């Protein structure tokens, strides 16, 4: 095995691929750690993963904390070598004598750690045994610890393989559901909006029957690779089965997700295939944002599938959104802007760091739809994150209705105007045909709708 000790960026990327940070405790790791504690007769044993600026414990006995800063961790030294690191008396080692974990709780006096080496040579962290008194670790104890460390990596590896669709490299359905549950938790606890896009290739079965499964697999792989290029780095692409895929977009409201779906839909026919140069792929997309009435991953997928079904039933090669039926009295949908505003508040950034933007006609890249926006964009100067105004539940309905006719905008606006929580000048997106959007009369009409507000 080629050990990559100096490639920190690659090591962190490898750690991300295993997708284990901040996951719940799991019995297999706890059993290994318990065996290490028993066999090596130590009070503390850990599976420690070294993140960019912290060490996080996947499993731990004998310590209460789940993470510490990286710069005080022993394990960050362990991953600098392919060999286990042994400290017989930390008080005598100049690297650790004044370490807060040595002079304070848990009062580490001796340590042995074996690096967790992946098959491709990266050290994700270490399996370590810690004592509160100085001691000598015997050679057999170090060998046993090293063997246990290899078993820890096997467990990580098993999860990674199970999470990946072997044909396309996208995540599996099971892994997607786990990620979706995390997004739901973020939504419930921090009002962070997330959106699921479910999509499948139109008439795929016919293509599969005509050219055979091998060519069908080639199409699936090309489609997955294409979507992978189109998505944001943090978005999660999964293959749900057959030709059905899903894209989970966290920190993303339905307007942004719809824009992504439409961009992908418009560009997909550009893919070319050697076995059939004339083949033009199209796909249908269903978009569903997390909402108060949907708090399980399975339900979320069902809602995205319902929108996908609608797209299929109404002509294919289109995107439809799921309109949630919210419980009475439910609060408004969180917007991406909420998260940034909370972040800004938490960071105690002054008002000067928040930029207000107002834009008007903004044709989308696919040139079919334009977007008339009267919204506030909030930018955190500290993180550089820019959030859109997003859509309130009423606006979701509004958006569906106003896709083609300005008359409907007038009618819908009149209905929504008495409900300022659903319809405000600051937080409204209007989707319309680009040609309509660019016409001067249309802009004047919208100014009238917005109660005389002058559009930029």
């Amino acid at each position, binding site marked *: 095995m080629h050990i990559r000790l100096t490639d920190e960026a690659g090591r962190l990327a490898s750690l991300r691929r295993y997708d284990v940070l901040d996951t719940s405790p799991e*019995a*297999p790791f706890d*059993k*290994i750690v318990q*065996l290490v504690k028993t*066999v090596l007769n130590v009070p503390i044993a850990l599976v420690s993963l070294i993140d960019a600026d912290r060490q996080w414990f996947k499993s731990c006995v004998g310590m209460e904390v789940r993470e510490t800063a990286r710069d005080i961790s022993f394990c960050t030294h362990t991953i600098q070598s392919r060999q286990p690191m042994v400290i017989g008396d930390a008080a005598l080692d100049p690297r650790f004598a004044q370490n807060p974990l040595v002079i304070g709780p848990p009062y580490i006096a001796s340590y042995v750690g074996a690096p967790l080496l992946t*098959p491709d040579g990266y050290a994700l962290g270490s399996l370590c045994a810690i004592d509160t008194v100085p001691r000598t670790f*015997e050679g*057999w*104890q170090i*060998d*046993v610890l*090293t*063997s*246990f460390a*290899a*078993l820890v990596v*096997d*467990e990580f*590896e*098993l*999860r990674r*393989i*199970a999470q990946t*669709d*072997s*044909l396309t490299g996208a995540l*599996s*359905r*099971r892994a997607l559901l786990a990620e979706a549950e995390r997004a739901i938790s973020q939504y419930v606890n921090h009002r962070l909006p997330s959106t699921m896009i479910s999509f499948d290739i139109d008439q795929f079965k016919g293509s599969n029957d005509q050219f055979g499964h091998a060519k069908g697999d080639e199409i699936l792989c090309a489609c997955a690779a294409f979507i992978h290029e189109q998505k944001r780095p943090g978005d999660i692409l999964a*293959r749900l*089965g057959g030709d059905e895929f899903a894209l989970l977009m966290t920190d993303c409201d339905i307007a942004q997700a719809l824009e992504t779906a439409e961009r992908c839909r418009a560009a997909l026919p550009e893919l070319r295939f050697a076995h059939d140069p004339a083949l033009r792929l199209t796909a249908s997309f269903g978009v569903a944002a997390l909402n108060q009435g949907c708090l399980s991953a399975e339900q979320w997928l069902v809602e995205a599938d319902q929108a996908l079904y609608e797209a299929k039933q109404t002509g294919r090669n289109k995107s439809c959104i799921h309109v949630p039926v919210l419980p009475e009295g439910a609060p408004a949908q969180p917007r991406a802007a909420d998260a940034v505003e909370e972040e800004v508040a938490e960071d105690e950034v002054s008002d000067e760091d928040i930029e207000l933007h107002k834009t008007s006609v903004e044709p989308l890249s696919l040139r079919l739809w334009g977007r008339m926006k009267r919204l506030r964009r909030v930018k955190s100067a500290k993180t550089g994150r820019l959030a859109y105004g997003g859509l309130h539940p009423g606006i979701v309905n509004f958006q569906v209705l106003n896709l083609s006719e300005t008359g409907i905008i007038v009618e819908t606006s009149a209905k929504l105007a008495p409900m300022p929580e659903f319809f405000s000048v600051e937080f409204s997106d209007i989707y319309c045909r680009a040609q309509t959007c660019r016409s001067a009369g249309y802009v004047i009409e919208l100014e009238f709708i917005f109660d005389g507000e002058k559009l930029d």
Partner: protein
Amino acid sequence: MADHPMELPDPAMGLNVPPALAASINRHRAHVEQLATSLRAAGMPDAQIEASVSVLIASYRSELIPALKSLMKADPDAH
């Protein structure tokens, strides 16, 4: 102390698994054997070694079964 290698159960239960998973299972099997050897060299009684190894194999298998189901659902030809 026994001088013959420990008989390890096949965690895949004889199923024809996808190559990526088969490689992982083989590595796990080798690592369990390596651990058993280390424990035996340290003088641990065979019964205790078997108990430890059984715990590890059982917990690995408990994760392997859903992994197999997941992979076979995605690729029905791989069984």
